[in-house]
């Protein structure tokens, strides 16, 4: 099973739009997994029918049984995340601050603390006209996006074992969720756009992906927007030794399709032709033809 992650570091480069388009070009041979769990958007383009919605449990959270607590405050002193507060006649855990480390449970002399499962989001599975689909969303302010990404990818592997390819729409940034999304992928596609901040973020992203030993490819989106910027990206790509899969121009067809909530590749346009060629190339590279 081949796994491809599409990532961008910075948001707004058109990563999800491009993931949806690549997915539609691989129709029937791909499981799409939206791992951008803080803002899952792929479903807006793929329009899947959802078959199941299941709760997702993140790290356990501490719970204090106030009837056993003698207010010694040992837990408060030991919690490195300032998640426990003393009130007049009880102590309380703030579930949004608690990281579930279990230290308070260990130190409490009166065994008043237990670690309990905590629902912090949902994972949905379904199918679209292009194939099976999975995404997840965290309830606002819940951490553990890395854990959730891990879980989504695991389900993507299980949902249709005979489909050869998993396409992961990765989260932004370079932190924990990104690392979970990229680890173990065969190919990482970096979607970028010209502009000084784009290149700056990309450099950091490349460092992280490289440390995870990922094979990288680059797509330059809106390539004709800032010609100087595109040139600079091409140079960086060469310097990093990352092949450029394709350059997609600003294309009204993309805006139009996105507004209509469908992959732009469903209509013929300059961008469609370019991306189709790139995906054919990718298929050949991966022996998928």
């Amino acid at each position, binding site marked *: 099973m081949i796994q491809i992650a599409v990532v961008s570091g910075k948001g707004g480069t058109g990563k999800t739009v491009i993931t949806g388009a690549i997915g539609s070009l691989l129709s029937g041979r791909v499981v799409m997994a939206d791992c951008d769990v803080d803002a899952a958007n792929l479903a807006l383009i793929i329009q899947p029918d959802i078959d199941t919605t299941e709760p997702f449990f993140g790290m356990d959270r501490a719970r204090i049984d106030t009837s056993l607590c003698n207010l010694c405050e040992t837990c408060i002193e030991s919690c490195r995340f300032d998640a426990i507060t003393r009130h007049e006649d009880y102590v309380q855990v703030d579930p949004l601050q608690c990281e579930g480390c279990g230290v308070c449970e260990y130190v409490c002399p009166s065994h008043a603390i237990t670690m309990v499962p905590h629902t912090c989001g949902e994972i949905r599975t379904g199918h679209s006209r292009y194939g099976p689909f999975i995404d997840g969303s965290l309830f*606002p302010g819940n951490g553990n996006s890395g854990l959730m990404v891990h879980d989504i990818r695991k389900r993507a592997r299980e949902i249709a074992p005979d489909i050869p390819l998993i396409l992961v729409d990765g989260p932004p940034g370079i932190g924990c969720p990104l690392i979970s999304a990229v680890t173990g992928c065969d190919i990482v596609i970096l979607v970028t756009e010209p*502009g000084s901040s784009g290149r700056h973020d990309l450099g*950091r992203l490349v460092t992280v992906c490289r440390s995870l030993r990922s094979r990288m490819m680059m797509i330059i989106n809106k390539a004709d927007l800032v010609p100087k910027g595109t040139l600079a990206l091409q140079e960086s790509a060469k310097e990093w030794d990352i092949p450029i899969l394709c350059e997609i121009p600003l294309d009204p067809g993309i805006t139009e399709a996105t507004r209509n909530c469908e992959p732009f590749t469903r209509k013929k346009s300059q961008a469609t032709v370019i991306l189709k060629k790139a995906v054919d190339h990718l298929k050949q590279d991966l022996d998928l033809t």
Partner: protein
Amino acid sequence: MQIAIASGKGGTGKTTVAVNLALALSTSHEVTLADCDVEEPNCHLFFSGHPDEEIVTNPVPEIDTDACTLCGTCGSFCRYGALIVLTDRVLQYPQLCHSCGGCEIVCPTGAISMRPEKAGVVHISKPKPSLSLISGTLEEGSIHTTTVIKAVRRHLLRENLVLLDAPPGSSCAAMETLKDCDFCLMVTEPTPFGLHDLTLIHEVTEIFNIPTAVVINRSDEKNNDVDMYCTAHNLPVLMRIPFDRTIALMQGSGEIISGQDPVWRERFVRLGLQCLALTGAR
């Protein structure tokens, strides 16, 4: 006074708004711009100067192999899988460590002490006499996003006018940035994505009960779902920025439009004053 500039996801023009607003308001106020988007900090790209640097660390365990009896207690305690005790050594994955300090507490032989590991840096500069920039940068490969944001936040003074460039999304990092803010300016785009992301960030501001307003970027797209959402939820739309190649070009080359164009400067000053008015301050 702390005003967060946030968006459901990146690339909506959040940094553009933050930077322009900071520059425009700095003509009348003492302004601090805090870049809390530490995974992709971009504000500093718009200002020159040599910042002071502060290293941010978090504690990770260090094991004294002479004292360690390979008893396994630390490994079975660590809920993040950052320590695994084998038959001949203790394996450590510092990149998984959440710095809870638990292993140090549970080790029966006192073999564990905590050493600082770099999580990121905070850069402090003063691009203009009335404008300070505090910018956090997460170390590549580190997961301690909130540690770095907390370090940025420690530099912020209550009495100053502080603009915070918030991390995208509704993650714990966004929460860490938003939680003590007095006002949140949400930047979005009039697309189905933009609407979806706006609802997410709006939910977060409601958890903290922070008053909000909206800036619509690329406002010339023909989609009024975002406007309908704003009307339905009583969210004032304070500014609309049309798509413009000149703006895009300037942005791409690290220039600030309100620094170049008096019309835009005026618009951003007005935006800032409107925000301040909505928070009840002047």
